[in-house]
C-alpha cells in the first residue's frame, strides 16, 4: 500500500483547478468525469509522480458541513511543504491570493495561511533547520 492521493473538498472544481494550477503552480494530473461525477487531481510540478491532491466537489451535506466548520475554526484543510515560505508568500500574494496569516514562526516551522477561494484554508509550512 502507498499513500498516493489525498482529498480536499472544494465548492467549485473549475475554480479550484484554476487556483491550484495558476496560483499555487501545481499541475493537473487526472481529470475525468462520469455523469455529474468528476475525478480531478493535481500534483506538485516539482514531483509530478508524487502524491496527488484530489479536488473533490463537496456535493454531499457531510462534506459541506465539515468543510465549513473547519474553515470557521481557522483550521487548514490541507498543508503543503516548501523550502521557502517567505518567497512563496510573496509570489502567491503577488498573484492575488488572500493570506489570513503571513509567514509566522511556530514550534519547529514557519507557517503561512491563505484562502483557496473554494472554501478552504491552506497552510504553507517550512520546517525549521536545527
Amino acid at each position, binding site marked *: 500500500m502507498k499513500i498516493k492521493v489525498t482529498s480536499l473538498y472544494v465548492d467549485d472544481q473549475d475554480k479550484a483547478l484554476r487556483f491550484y494550477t495558476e496560483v499555487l503552480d501545481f499541475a493537473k494530473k487526472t481529470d475525468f468525469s*462520469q455523469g455529474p461525477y468528476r*475525478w480531478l487531481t493535481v500534483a506538485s510540478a516539482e514531483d509530478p509522480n508524487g502524491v496527488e491532491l484530489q479536488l473533490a466537489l463537496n456535493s454531499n451535506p457531510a462534506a459541506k458541513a465539515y468543510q465549513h466548520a473547519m474553515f470557521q475554526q481557522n483550521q487548514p484543510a490541507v498543508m503543503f511543504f516548501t523550502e521557502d515560505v517567505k518567497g512563496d508568500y510573496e509570489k502567491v500574494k503577488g498573484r492575488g491570493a488572500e493570506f489570513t496569516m503571513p509567514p509566522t514562526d511556530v514550534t519547529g516551522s514557519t507557517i503561512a495561511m491563505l484562502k483557496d477561494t473554494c472554501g478552504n484554508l491552506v497552510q504553507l509550512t517550512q520546517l525549521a533547520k536545527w
Partner: protein
Amino acid sequence: MIQGEQYIPRPAYGAQIRKDGDKWTLILVRELRHSPEKVWQALTDPAHLREWAPFDADGNLGTVGSTVKLTTVGAPTPLVSETTVTRADAPNVLEYKWGSFDMRWELEAWAGGTRLTLWTNIGHRFIAMGAAGWHICFDVLDHLLSGTPIGRMVGPAAMKFGGWQRLNAEYAKQFGIESPNWPPQADQKS
C-alpha cells in the same frame, strides 16, 4: 440474453451540443419502437432504471415534487445526489436534476413508437464521453423494452467496451472538440 460482446453500436448519430453562456447542453434524439407509456415507465421506475440507466434511483421519478436519491453507478468514490422532480407530465415531459446537471426528457408519439429527446448539461470537455455513454444506454434500453436485454453497460463496464471508445471519438469529431485520452492517466498534459 444476447451476450454484450455481440452488441456493436451503430455509428454516432442524433446528437447536438448547445452552448448557453459557459453552460453546455447535450441533446440526444432517439426513435424507439415502444410506446411513450412504456418508455415513460423505463425512465421513472427504479426497477427499470437499474437495467439501463447510469444511476440507480431509490424512488419513482414520475411524480412532481418527490425527492429521490440518485446514485451514480461506478463512480470512483460514492456519489449520491438528492433530487426533486420538477416536472412530470406523463408520458411526455420529465425534468429533474442529476447532481448539478439539468435533465429534461421529452417523449413524442412517433410512427407507433416514441421519439425520445434528452437534454442534459455536461462539462464541455466531457460532452463526447457523455454522448457515447448515453448512446449505449439507449441501445440497452431499447433491447430491454424489446424483451431481449443485453445488460446494463455503464461506468467502468462502458469505458472498457471498445464500442464506447469508438463512439467517444466519433462524437468528439462530430462536435469538433478534443476529447480527453482514455485511460485518463495517459492524459498528462495540463
